[in-house]
């Protein structure tokens, strides 16, 4: 079983549209949406018959005002300034560290487990899919990403599928770290802009840090061909695999508006031909 995780550093470079197109081309796979913070893959995949599960991400402290003597110890100990002078805990600031709970002399602070999201196993027209939704303003996205990837792995073993195709989050922080560890390869989708180049460099360093081989493709390459060449040169210097490039093509937006992959929308378009070629290269590299 192989896992390919599509990431980008910079947001909005086309990760999800490309994963959706790969979903239409790849055989025997599980789809996994690890962008739990702002998940979009389901908008194209149209998941059905979902099994729903709650995600319990951690605990949150709540003060019982009947027991509280307002001694102030919790306020002194809290490093997040989450407790105000009225001994109310700001649930957004609370880190769930439990220090106030442990030290409260009156045992006046409860520490219930909090449901902070949900995850699903669904059927799609391209095969099974594991996806999730982190509650708005919640923490612990890394933990939910780890859970979703583990469920995708279990599902692939159970059903004898050879590939997990994972749509990753933007950035280089907690959810991205949780998305790439142990993957066979990451595909970094970038764009030929100063920010695309800058962010690709950082996320490529992250992949190297966790020893995951990185493949790079440039989306909308014709917006700035010089920058595309700079990126290609960079990949050679860093011993990354330059996988190919996709032209700017409005069919990505048109297909999305209709809830289709670009392969279904117009398989003869320039954008789609480029994606076919990318997928061919990936299949060879991953031996799938």
């Amino acid at each position, binding site marked *: 079983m192989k896992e390919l995780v599509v990431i980008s550093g910079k947001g909005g470079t086309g990760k999800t549209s490309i994963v959706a197109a790969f979903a239409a081309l790849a055989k025997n796979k599980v789809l996994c949406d690890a962008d739990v913070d*702002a998940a979009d893959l389901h*908008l194209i995949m149209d998941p059905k018959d979902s099994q729903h599960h709650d995600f319990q991400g951690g*605990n949150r402290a709540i003060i019982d005002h009947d027991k509280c003597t307002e001694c102030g110890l919790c306020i002194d100990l809290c490093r997040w300034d989450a407790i105000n002078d009225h001994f109310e805990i700001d649930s*957004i600031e609370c880190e769930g560290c439990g220090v106030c709970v442990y030290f409260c002399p009156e045992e006046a602070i409860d520490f219930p487990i909090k449901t902070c999201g949900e995850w699903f196993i669904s059927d799609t027209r391209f095969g099974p899919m594991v996806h999730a939704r982190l509650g*708005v*303003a919640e923490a612990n996205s890394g933990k939910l990403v780890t859970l979703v990837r583990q469920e995708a792995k279990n599902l692939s073993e159970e059903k004898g599928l050879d590939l997990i195709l994972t749509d990753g989050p933007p*950035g280089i922080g907690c959810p991205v770290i949780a998305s790439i560890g142990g993957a066979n390869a990451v595909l970094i989708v970038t764009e030929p*802009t*100063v*920010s695309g180049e800058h962010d690709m460099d950082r996320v490529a360093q992250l992949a190297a840090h966790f020893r995951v081989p990185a493949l790079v493709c440039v989306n909308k390459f014709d917006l700035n061909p010089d920058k595309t060449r700079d990126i290609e040169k960079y990949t050679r210097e860093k011993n990354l695999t330059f996988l190919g490039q996709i032209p700017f093509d409005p069919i990505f937006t048109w297909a999305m508006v209709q809830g289709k992959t670009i392969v279904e929308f117009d398989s003869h378009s320039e954008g789609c031909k480029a994606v076919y070629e990318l997928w061919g290269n990936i299949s060879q590299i991953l031996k799938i």
Partner: protein
Amino acid sequence: MIISIASGKGGTGKTTVATNLALSIDTDVQLLDCDVEEPNAHLFIHPIFEKIETITTPVPVVDEEKCNLCKKCSEICQFKAIMVIGETVLTFHELCHSCGGCMEVCPEGAITETGRELGIIERGHRNGLEFIHGRLRVGEAMSPPLIKKVRSFTRPDRLTIIDAPPGTSCPVIAAMKDVDFILLVTEPTPFGLNDLKLAVGAVNILKIPCGLVINRSDIGDENVKEYATKEDLPVLMEIPFDRQIAETYSRGEALVEVMSEWKEKFLELYHRIEEIVR
């Protein structure tokens, strides 16, 4: 006044709006790039950096001589960052959230703190514009403490513009909490709308007034505008898709400095925000 520029979905144009807004206003402005995972605003502002500092977060160090292996530290730790295994105490600094619980609970006073590097903060200026950004260390998972540190440089006597990270979870909240206005940048596509709804959910939790900028406003469909009308969200600016704008961006040039007609439009955006906040 503090204005935070956020989006839900990545790549909708937060940095374009934040940098061009900052460059269009003539009064004292500071721009804080709080997208510390992938900071990009400096690529368009081209600031001269004068100060650079490394930011750390406290993590425990155990004095094995003093430790009596009572395990209280591992019991209090919610993040499995400190564990007693056999005759030794193991600390996992990358998992530590810096709550200080282990140090507080240790009856032998065997725990002190050292720093784990979160990243750096660079401060500088470009003409009258004060520029500050954080750069998360590659491999560091936790961005909110660095974002809060960047925000600690907010000066109440200035207009502060914050370039927030994408998403709707804790890093975004750290960049949007306690501001006067949130400007949500979106695009009129199904992904844009889906993530806009999530971002509006976050804004509603924080109870902060907000408005929209619709970027690439002539692609996609009408659903974002219908949603804005239904939810009573003011659309404060629309930026059409224009290859010249995209190419200007790709080279690291600010729109208002290449296509000067945009300066007026960004100034008007600022005045509309001022009116709402007042």
